[in-house]
């Protein structure tokens, strides 16, 4: 289905399913880092592929991207993006490391991938049980580079079937006081055929 034809009800369904999935994911992350993590209401954004990097705050902004494929009854990608400062704070919380800058090594990469894994698994299992579908995350992959370079990986997949990208985005915010907040974007990027299935299962079609 062309993304353009989504009506308000269908957009709401996508938002709500994402909200529930992300709620579970945030709980999982809170337990992992020992601090509460807050959620921002998800946005469903439909935008031209060429505009996606700007949407993320600029193509050259340094980001840690963790991506997984969604396997099972539905297909799509998950992309989890942390600005480098947030990735650093997250690691400090996880490993107790007090380093001043973000250093990528085997341990930190593995820790960040595990965050991606836990968030995605919690999200997909909540989404799956709601839709009565089996959704399985693949092994996470990580890149630490410019935002544009990190996201074009998922855009390539999308661009095969469309000039538009649909992003189901949730921001999560750590301790909301101060600059110590951990900020991240969580994107669910369903394949166009999977989007039909989602809406169908959620009653978005009469």
């Amino acid at each position, binding site marked *: 289905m062309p993304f353009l034809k989504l009506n308000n009800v269908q957009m709401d369904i996508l938002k709500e399913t994402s909200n529930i999935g992300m709620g579970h994911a945030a709980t999982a992350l809170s337990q992992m880092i020992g601090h509460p993590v807050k959620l921002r209401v998800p946005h469903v954004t439909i935008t031209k*592929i*060429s505009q996606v990097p700007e949407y993320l705050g600029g193509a050259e902004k340094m980001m840690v991207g963790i991506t997984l494929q969604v396997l099972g009854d539905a297909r799509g990608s998950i992309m989890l993006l942390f600005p480098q400062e947030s990735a650093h704070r997250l690691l400090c919380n996880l490993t107790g490391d007090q380093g001043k800058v973000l250093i990528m090594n085997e341990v930190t990469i593995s820790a960040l991938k595990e965050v991606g894994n836990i968030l995605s698994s919690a999200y997909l299992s909540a989404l799956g049980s709601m839709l009565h579908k089996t959704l399985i995350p693949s092994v996470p*992959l990580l*890149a630490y580079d410019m935002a*544009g370079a990190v996201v074009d*990986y998922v855009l390539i997949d999308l*661009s095969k079937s*469309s*000039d538009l990208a649909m992003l189901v985005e949730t921001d999560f915010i750590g301790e909301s006081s101060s600059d110590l907040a951990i900020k991240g974007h969580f994107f669910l990027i369903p394949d166009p055929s999977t989007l039909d299935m989602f809406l169908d299962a959620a009653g978005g079609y009469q």
Partner: protein
Amino acid sequence: MSEQVSIAESRIARAPAVLKAYGLGSCVAVALYDPETKLGGMGHMLLPDRPSSSPLGSESKYVDVGICQIVDQLVRAGAKRETLVAKIAGGANMFETSYQTLINSVGARNAKSARKTLGTLDIPIVGEEVGGNRGRTVEFDLATGKILVYCAHTENPISL
């Protein structure tokens, strides 16, 4: 005066313009330049080739038809077809893994498609900065035909 070439777009310009493509991952930037008229064009492409079954969407998304489109536009703008030279950058594999899936090789396939298309068009490739697992920002100066490639983890740009 610099103009941005976003993902799935292409643009032609004349000196003294500077064309920029930010944050290339698996995407490739193909720059074409005519040193005589100082006309040049650059595309920021996502996919190696346009499948014959789906003529949908913009041409500048695909490496093969995208290159042809830039060449046509340059020639129409007054560039000499015979003196065109090309430089390519990008085509990285950002998510290095031990298992290779199809999508992982898309950067390599983009670069390969660019070489093949330019070969068919008989346009020489005079500079390349492709592959690896790093993101790149490309700055194409039409006054000189030089390209600077900036990478996130290195200090100095690479000049092509």
